[in-house]
């Protein structure tokens, strides 16, 4: 290492002699390049050579390989994602849509909201704590890059069996990572998901959502403009984090980058997060935005400097280029090669385009926040992305060619097993009689998927910033946006891998419907959708079919509901060996609340209130929690979807909340009415007495069916008639089933469970598993 300082000093022939420059590449067209190790196919490599009219340099090869990776280019999913582009009225409130770092929605009163969900699945399996932590860090920077102040996070988690040995390693690590990073950033965590299934044992899902708020005028774009403007890299220094792949380059036959033939240093694939630096970066960026000191801004995520420079330059249009001097990039490890500098995924970095006239002010703001900022290049008018290192040109490419990437229409085929799966409905024996139903309810309530999540959620600060009106365990998180007008936003995420395995089209619509319903339960109007598509290998035609179906279902569902998809993320190759996870699209829905003081909670609060079930209950148990918990069975078809009915239900709740008619509202989902009522009892600390015949003639069906489009609400008895009339005017079936009373869950003619017993079962599960 000691010689690298000497090497860096003369920026002339000495450094360049050993460097794989554009000239060297042109002169040595036959040099072998490790493109396969970097993940490029023969065809892709040939395409790069064709674009450049020569072989790429080592640095260019690194740049194309990361930009054309599945992760950055969406090459397998792009053809399908196009279906999600909002149409007509759906697009009405979008200020920025798919393609931006995160979509932006107009919520009125001059406010705009941006939100997005992203996966960090694979890193969280390798190193749960840091993997999950940096997942939060990455999505927060996406939101920040839009010009918004990040105001909350959520986390949707899937693990292997709760009692599996490895889950005891992965789950606590993931949760502590999210807690460590999110809490330290001062972002309230207002909800998420936690579920378990053997299909995630070797491939947990860690999806993080961030939401930010800004004024309309604050919207920023990831665009380089104005030749002569400066390119500024700021935040943490660049180190060898996450460049495992790049060491391939250093050890390849032409290896000249390191300059001294020294074996490539170890390059960790694990990134370590520094939430404190990210907090400084957030405050620094917001002050830069407020001072109008940036022309364009981009966060550095996967593919680091390569991606930020390429996308900023490409975003500027065909005439715009950028010249970057890689010697100026502040390094934590001076032995990094140009390829490694480009690929490094060091966290907590941003890149801004700044006019020379504002450079001084920009630097002063960064200094105030102790954020290192370095001018590493400038915007040019030549349409080329050019990078130099030690006097030689190591990158010279048209940026659009790297930013666009290939697009594949991969083969897809409906797996033949789908039919067998559909035919294998849950025909198992059903519990009969009060004692058996009671037992079934307790078994479900204590199952890891449905048990109290406090073990996890108590590790998250849900209230920092003082605007959290609702958070877990409520159906949706609700944040106050304006203290004077009481405007707010609600958020929920949902996904159900079992439903999607049975039918990815319907399963995705059910996830959309559930998130939509959860948002509506707070009293907010659902307005926009984000999604994270977690699937297996795109090279498997069956998986591609699942993906295509899921996207088709989401697109059609959003069109029916009249709300746009504003963005999202695709995570592929989620599998262990040949076995893919259940297709698991996680859907996030954002809603607007006109007056957060009229929020609605899920707990039974008011003694004597009338309990009403909304929606229609059919015998639908395919993919249900009951089949899973009682029989370990997955088969049949998921519940039917009626999005128009969902919409009517949502409108009813919003209207009733606005009119002050609701004492509580809780949606019905996994585990059906039984679980919803038990949760409402436990959250409110009040018992209830209900009869099931108004719900379904079969007690079992009434309790455990998972028919969509339903909710259980309570209203004061004197307002019950008014509420029921309102329900009918919205064309929503409403059946009064009992009252809030006592300290047990009492079902006429069936059973009676004291709240203490319910609580012990519900609360005991996760602590017993995880300490």
């Amino acid at each position, binding site marked *: 290492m000691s010689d690298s300082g000497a090497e860096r000093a003369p920026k002339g022939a000495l450094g360049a002699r050993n460097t794989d420059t554009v000239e060297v590449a042109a002169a040595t067209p036959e040099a072998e390049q490790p493109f396969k190790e970097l993940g490029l196919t023969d065809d892709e490599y040939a395409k790069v050579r064709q674009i450049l009219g020569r072989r790429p340099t080592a640095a260019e090869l690194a740049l194309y390989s990361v930009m054309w990776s599945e992760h950055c280019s969406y090459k397998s999913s792009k053809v399908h994602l196009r279906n999600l582009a909002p149409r007509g009225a759906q697009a009405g409130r979008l200020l920025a849509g798919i393609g931006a770092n995160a979509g932006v929605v107009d919520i009125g009163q001059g406010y705009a909201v941006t939100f997005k969900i992203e996966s960090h699945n694979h890193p969280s399996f390798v190193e749960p704590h840091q993997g999950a932590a940096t997942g939060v860090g990455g999505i927060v920077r996406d939101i920040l890059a839009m010009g918004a102040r990040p105001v909350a996070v959520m986390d949707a988690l899937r693990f292997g069996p709760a009692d599996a040995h490895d889950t005891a390693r992965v789950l606590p690590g993931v949760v502590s990572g999210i807690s460590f990073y999110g809490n330290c950033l001062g972002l309230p965590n207002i909800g998420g998901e936690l579920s378990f299934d053997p299909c995630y044992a070797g491939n947990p899902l860690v999806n993080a959502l961030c939401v930010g708020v800004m004024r309309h005028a604050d919207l920023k774009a990831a665009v380089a403009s104005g030749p002569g403007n400066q390119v500024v890299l700021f935040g943490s220094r660049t180190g060898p984090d996450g460049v495992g792949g790049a060491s391939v380059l250093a050890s390849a036959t032409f290896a000249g980058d390191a300059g001294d033939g020294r074996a490539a240093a170890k390059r960790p694939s694990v990134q370590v997060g520094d939430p404190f630096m990210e907090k400084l970066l957030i405050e620094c960026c917001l002050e830069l935005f407020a001072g109008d000191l940036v022309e364009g801004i981009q966060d550095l995520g996967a593919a680091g400097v390569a991606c930020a420079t390429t996308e900023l330059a490409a975003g500027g249009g065909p005439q715009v280029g950028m010249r970057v001097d890689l010697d100026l990039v502040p390094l934590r490890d001076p032995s990094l090669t140009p390829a490694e500098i480009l690929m490094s995924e060091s966290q907590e970095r941003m890149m801004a385009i700044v006019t020379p006239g504002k450079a001084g002010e920009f630097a002063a703001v960064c200094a105030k926040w102790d954020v290192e900022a370095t001018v590493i290049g400038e915007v040019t008018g030549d349409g080329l992305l050019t990078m130099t290192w030690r006097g030689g040109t190591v990158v010279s490419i048209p940026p659009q060619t790297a930013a666009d990437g290939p697009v594949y229409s991969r083969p897809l085929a409906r797996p033949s097993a789908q039919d067998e799966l559909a035919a294998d409905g849950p025909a198992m024996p059903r519990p009969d009689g009060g004692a058996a139903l009671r037992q079934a309810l307790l078994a479900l309530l204590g199952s890891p998927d449905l048990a109290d999540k406090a073990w996890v959620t108590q590790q998250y600060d849900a*209230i920092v910033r003082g605007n959290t009106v609702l958070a877990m365990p409520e159906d949706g998180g609700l944040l106050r946006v304006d203290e004077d007008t009481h405007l707010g936003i609600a958020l929920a995420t949902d996904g159900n891998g079992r439903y999607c395995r049975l039918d990815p089209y319907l399963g995705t619509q059910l996830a959309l419907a559930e998130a939509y319903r959860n948002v509506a339960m707070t009293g907010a109007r659902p307005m926009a959708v984000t999604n994270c598509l977690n699937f297996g290998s795109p090279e498997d035609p069956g998986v591609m079919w699942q993906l295509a179906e899921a996207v088709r279902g989401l697109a059609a569902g959003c069109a029916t509901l009249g709300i746009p998809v504003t963005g999202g993320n695709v995570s592929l190759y989620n599998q262990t060996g040949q076995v893919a996870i259940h297709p698991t699209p996680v859907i996030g829905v954002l809603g607007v609340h006109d007056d957060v003081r009229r929020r609605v909670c899920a707990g039974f609060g008011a003694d004597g209130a009338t309990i009403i079930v909304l929606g229609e209950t059919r015998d639908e148990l395919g993919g249900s929690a009951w089949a899973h918990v009682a029989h370990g069975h997955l088969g049949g078809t998921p519940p039917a979807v009626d999005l128009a009915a969902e919409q009517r239900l949502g409108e009813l709740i919003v209207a009733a909340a606005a009119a002050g008619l609701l004492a509580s509202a809780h949606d019905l989902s996994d585990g059906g009415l039984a679980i919803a009522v038990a949760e409402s009892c436990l959250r409110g600390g009040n018992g209830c007495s209900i009869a099931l015949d108004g719900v379904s003639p079969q007690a079992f069906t009434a309790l455990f069916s998972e028919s969509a489009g339903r909710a259980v609400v309570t209203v004061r008895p004197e307002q019950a008639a008014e509420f029921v009339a309102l329900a009918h005017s919205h064309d929503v079936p409403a059946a009064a089933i009992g009252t809030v009373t006592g300290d047990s869950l009492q079902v006429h003619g069936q059973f009676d469970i004291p709240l203490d017993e319910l609580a012990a079962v519900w609360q005991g599960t996760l602590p017993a598993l995880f300490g």
Partner: protein
Amino acid sequence: MTFPGSLDDQDAARAVRYAGAEPVPLWHADRDLRGVDAVILPGGFSYGDYLRCGAIARFSPVMGSLVPAARAGLPVLGICNGFQILCEAHLLPGALTRNAALRFIHRDVRLDVVNAGTAWTSGYAAGQSLTVPLKSGEGAYAADPETLDELERAGRVVVRYAQAAPNGSARDIAGICSAEGNIVGLMPHPEHAIDPLTGPSADGLGFFTSIVGAFAGAGAAR
């Protein structure tokens, strides 16, 4: 007061506003206390909680002014990270250590007001019960037995967890004060209990109305 990594500073400012006073932002790098009547060190992760919570913030330039001012009687309230900073700066005795279960805990806790005679608790009655959120990873108060005895003897335990301390705090101590009672530190967050819309109660507001009342009274007397 805002240090790098302070998080609940705007919440503290809001609580001051709710109590009817004017919050004045102070900045860690300025020595100037801007003539304020009282100072709140807010919650958060100053300097990322690296090394030890509050250990690095203690050396901020502003602490150079605050420490002597506090010793001379300026009312100071340290909440959570602010409490940790006050201990690290030796304005309050003892230290805050890792929660017994080694996990961050966020939940509402019940507190008993033990000392209603400090500048920050005069609006409460001794024995009053408050419901306030706790959210911290290193909230277990620790000190040697002599110090703990002395704190109890001198009535310097200000608030106590009503049930067993969820974090393993010595003698269920949630907050303490200086010998003169002007400096108070506590782990739970009264500034997050000023409005039932966004917190479990409005029980925490008393910390802020107490101090504002003290100055209003003094102003009237003047």
